[in-house]
């Protein structure tokens, strides 16, 4: 079985890179063929991941009912540091993988207007896809880090070479922020590595972490376990699952460092690395610059996929490995989320540049993700009721996917109009509805999805997060809810300035021809998905909820075991009513 999974997941990850290699041998002048080829590769990867979602895929099928990792394989890579080529999928990564392959395919289709150095563009584009998929699938912390950094290089060039007038500044700013986050992450990884010891785990835990392959027979497992136990020196590991077990079931990461447990520092370093990517205020300033300068397809990938890596990292790594630090810093994380939401919304209101506005809306919307993850409301007195946190975590995950659909859509819509009139000044638009009715209709739909209108995809995540915050802290919940008003304000005002009004008076008015078929083929799927996910959110929850709930239950279990040692949340009010609509949410989730 493992070899099947090895082939399957390696194909998913490295097929784009292989395509990039083939592209290198294309004759220079065949630019059209290169674009078709790159599109074909991305489509193939998308199909591959789509097949996994189908029930009839046999061995390849992603089983939504399984809460643990599936399709797991592990082979040695660098034995002297216990580094493995170790990958797997669960309900947290699978929707994001699917999102990645889908958005990448659409972005490649949106790359047709690229005329400069087409070969290099396509190659870098495909390598970028490999890097992103690798991050989502990697279960070895070191492998995770390598993919994380590998992803940086193509993005740097994609912004720097094909970007707008200030591209050099934007590219280097993007690179340095992410690099800084990356090196903090590296330190945290190494701190955890050198505190880890597989000998502290029981046989069942080692099997659950795939340190001992579950495929082995009982006897072989016992033999492997004895082999690990027989060592006199610590057995260090980069295995993310094993680190999670160590973080939740042992005191391996509780060593004292300058008055704080080691995991507190590790959590903080990792969090910095991830919130740079999310991005949260005050580490967000690279994002508007990068978006404004990047070409449209790259903005789509950046907003649709790369930002999700931050949220994914927090869910997969920060909390499960360092639960105590997560508990202690709950307010800090939530504050980061809320501040980003409010600041992003206000900043968006102030923008004159259409693309910059959308970029700030991303800062605001990704704040919901951080908030939803950070809401540690599992502890109610001495009752450990994780329902509210489950709702927040599910909401955050849903918000990531929803934002991954809506924001590429918004950036694409901005790109469509920019290509025609070559400016993005909000004050010089107006009246587009009359000239491009189809385009304007789709755009308004997608912008409403971003706004969070009920019935569209943006709504579900926001409302889940807002509800879950209520049981954590009323003040935060009220602020969260009021951000919805701000969001509505800047989106509606934008729609009014761009699409409504009597007639278009800005420059290049005669270039406002209707959408082409290619553009429609990109916008329509996003539009349809935005509606579908809003009307039938179960299509996403179906895949993610079991794993998300499992993660939360594990952490609540940890809290229960350590209840005696944990400080009560300062502002926690045990008499507060239970989450507002648990019944509805439970129904949603199940």
């Amino acid at each position: 079985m493992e070899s099947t999974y090895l082939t399957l997941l390696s194909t998913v990850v490295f097929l784009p890179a292989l395509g990039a290699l083939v592209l290198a041998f294309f004759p220079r002048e065949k630019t059209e063929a290169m674009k078709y080829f790159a599109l074909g590769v991305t489509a193939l990867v998308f199909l591959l991941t789509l097949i996994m979602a189908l029930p009839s895929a046999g061995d390849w099928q992603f089983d939504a009912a399984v809460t643990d990792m599936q399709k797991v394989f592990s082979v040695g890579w660098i034995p002297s540091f216990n580094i493995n080529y170790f990958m797997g999928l669960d309900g947290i990564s699978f929707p994001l993988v699917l999102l990645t392959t889908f958005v990448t395919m659409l972005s490649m289709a949106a790359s047709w207007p690229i005329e400069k150095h087409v070969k290099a563009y396509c190659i870098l584009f495909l390598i970028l896809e490999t890097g992103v998929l690798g991050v989502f699938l990697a279960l070895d912390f070191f492998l995770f880090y390598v993919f994380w950094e590998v992803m940086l290089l193509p993005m740097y060039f994609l912004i720097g070479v094909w970007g707008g007038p200030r591209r050099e500044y934007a590219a280097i700013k993007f690179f340095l922020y992410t690099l800084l986050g990356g090196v903090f992450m590296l330190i945290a990884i190494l701190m955890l590595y050198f505190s880890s010891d597989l000998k502290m785990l029981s046989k069942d835990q080692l099997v659950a972490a795939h340190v001992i392959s579950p495929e082995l027979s009982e006897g072989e497992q016992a033999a492997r376990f004895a082999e690990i136990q027989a060592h006199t020196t610590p057995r260090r590991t980069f295995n993310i699952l094993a680190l999670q077990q160590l973080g939740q079931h042992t005191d391996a990461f509780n060593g004292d460092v300058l008055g704080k447990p080691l995991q507190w520092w590790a959590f903080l370093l990792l969090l910095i690395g991830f919130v740079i990517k999310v991005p949260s205020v005050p580490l967000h300033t690279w994002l508007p610059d990068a978006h404004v300068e990047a070409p449209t397809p790259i903005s789509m990938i950046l907003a649709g996929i790369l930002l999700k890596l931050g949220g994914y990292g927090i869910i997969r790594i920060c909390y499960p490995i360092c639960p105590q630090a997560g508990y202690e810093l709950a307010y800090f994380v939530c504050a980061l989320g809320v501040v980003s939401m409010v600041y992003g919304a206000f900043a968006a209101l102030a923008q004159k540049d259409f693309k910059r506005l959308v970029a700030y809306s991303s800062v605001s919307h990704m704040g919901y993700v951080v908030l939803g993850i950070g809401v540690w409301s599992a502890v109610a007195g001495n009752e450990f009721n994780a329902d509210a946190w489950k709702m927040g975590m599910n909401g955050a995950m849903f918000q990531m996917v929803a934002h991954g659909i809506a924001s590429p859509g918004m950036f694409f819509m901005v790109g469509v109009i920019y290509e025609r009139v070559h400016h993005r000044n909000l004050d010089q638009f107006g009246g587009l509805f009359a000239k491009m009715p189809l385009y304007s209709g789709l755009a308004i739909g997608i912008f409403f999805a971003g706004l969070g209108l009920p019935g569209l995809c943006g709504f579900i995540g926001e409302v889940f997060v807002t509800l879950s915050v209520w049981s954590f802290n009323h003040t935060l919940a009220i602020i969260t809810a009021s951000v919805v008003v701000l969001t509505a304000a800047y989106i509606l005002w934008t729609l009014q300035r761009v699409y409504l009004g009597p007639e278009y008076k800005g420059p290049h008015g005669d270039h406002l021809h209707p959408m082409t078929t290619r553009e429609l083929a990109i916008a329509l799927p996003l539009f349809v998905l935005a509606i579908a996910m809003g009307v039938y959110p179960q299509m996403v929850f179906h895949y993610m909820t079991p794993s998300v709930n499992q993660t939360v239950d594990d952490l609540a279990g940890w809290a229960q075991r350590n209840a005696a040692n944990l400080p009560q949340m300062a502002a926690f009010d045990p008499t507060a009513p239970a989450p507002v609509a648990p019944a509805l949410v439970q129904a949603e989730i199940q």
Partner: protein
Amino acid sequence: MTSETAYLLLPEIILILAGTLIYLGGAFAPGKSAWAALAALVILAAGGALAQQGTTETVQKALVTGTISGPLTIDWFSAAIRYGVLAVGLVFALVGSRWVGEGDQSEFQGSLLMILAGLMLVALSNDLVLVFVGLELISIPTYVMLYLGKGTNLLESGTKYFFLSLLSSALMLYGFSFLYGVAGSTSLIDIRETFANPDADAARLMSFARLALILIFAGLAFRLTAVPFHFYAPDVYQGTSNANAGILAVIPKIAALAAIVRIIYAGMPGLEQIGWQLTLAVALVTMTLGNLLALWQTNVRRMMAYSSIAHAGYMLIGLSVGFAAAGGAVVAEGLDGVGATLFYLLVYAAATAGVFAALTYLSGERRIVSTLDDLAGLSSSHPKTSAALALFMFSLAGLPPLAGFWGKFTLFTGALSVDARNPESGNLWPWFVALALVGVINAAISGAYYLRLIGVMYFRSGDAAPEGQGGAGAALATALCALAVIGIGAYPGPLVEAGKKASRAARDVSPEMLAGDRVPANQTAVVKPLPGLQKAEF
């Protein structure tokens, strides 16, 4: 000198003889590229001689146990450095193949061969006198070399280097004299024995030993370009030619580290405390200052000078961990600070030599590539060279999966592996975590200027493309370095292991080294203290 010693020195002898011949030959046939080809062949021949020695039984046994032969130490450490030096030398011989000014070709190549021989002697020597001779054999041809070629301000940079190098040699020699005073011998193995088991006299003089350590380190820090002995580097690199700057950025660092390992790390046990503290402090300051000052540079050679200062700081991280481990701190098994430093040295040399090879290749009769603006738009005029330069920059910045990443990775893992839970090393731990933290922040800072260079090449358009007349040799050297950066990145394991092996060999003393295989006293170059000058009289 016994015949065995002469045989063991064969590679160095080949280099020196050939160097002399090339000097002489240059008087009759100046300015021929053939001298470069000859030098490259000589380097390959020396490598062949080295490899041939490796197959003999004596040397094979020596490599396992570590053996003293006369004033020489044959072990994995000297073997690793000698091979590394020859590889670096080959690259620079190629770099200088075409464009080092009129008629200076033979002088350049002759000096290079001498320098290589000196460098190998430093790694080989078991005697303070021979170490000093080796270091001077590097310095003196370097003075000559700095006046060769085509630079923007050769005279100033050559003179500056000359005087400061003399100063550093004097400092080091002063330190050597204290060391001799404490130990009563110039033989490193004797010095080590004295430090490991000091008799009453030596114990009384231990405070002088500390002074000796600091003076020797200061003298070598000049060659390593560690703060505060770094200040000459930017001026000198900027003023001289690209090829010379490359040699200065790489070769003195190898010499300094080899000497530090032989004399301080291996030769002065018992002083590990001061060793790790000194290297740690200097490492922190050096890397930070180097990286911060590099941010403002617009001259590529000046930027690379600050970059080389910063990298000297990274190298000291490994040394510091090595000293701490030798002093009893618990470091995770399988890690070796000094081994990591040696590996890093190689990784750094590959990328840095590559950068200067590429710059040499890009230069021409009318313009030597010096400023960032000279590189603007390089990606369209010289796509292959700019790709190689980008590769070197990414490697220097430490991005996976290139060689530089593994270099930094091994260094930082070393620093973080000083065990937190072990009571003995517990009090050291915060220092080394801080060291690693400062190290990674520096790595991020360094990204800014390395990427700026890439940005200039790829995102800007230039008015005048560089001429690219550096010749096939420089192009080949660039390609070799690029291959090394990729190859080590893809498969770092064997070289990391080789670094560890070399470091262990330098530190561990086998019984044979202390007694068995030692050449009788009348045949060694060990200077015995004169009867009238007993150490007690100091």
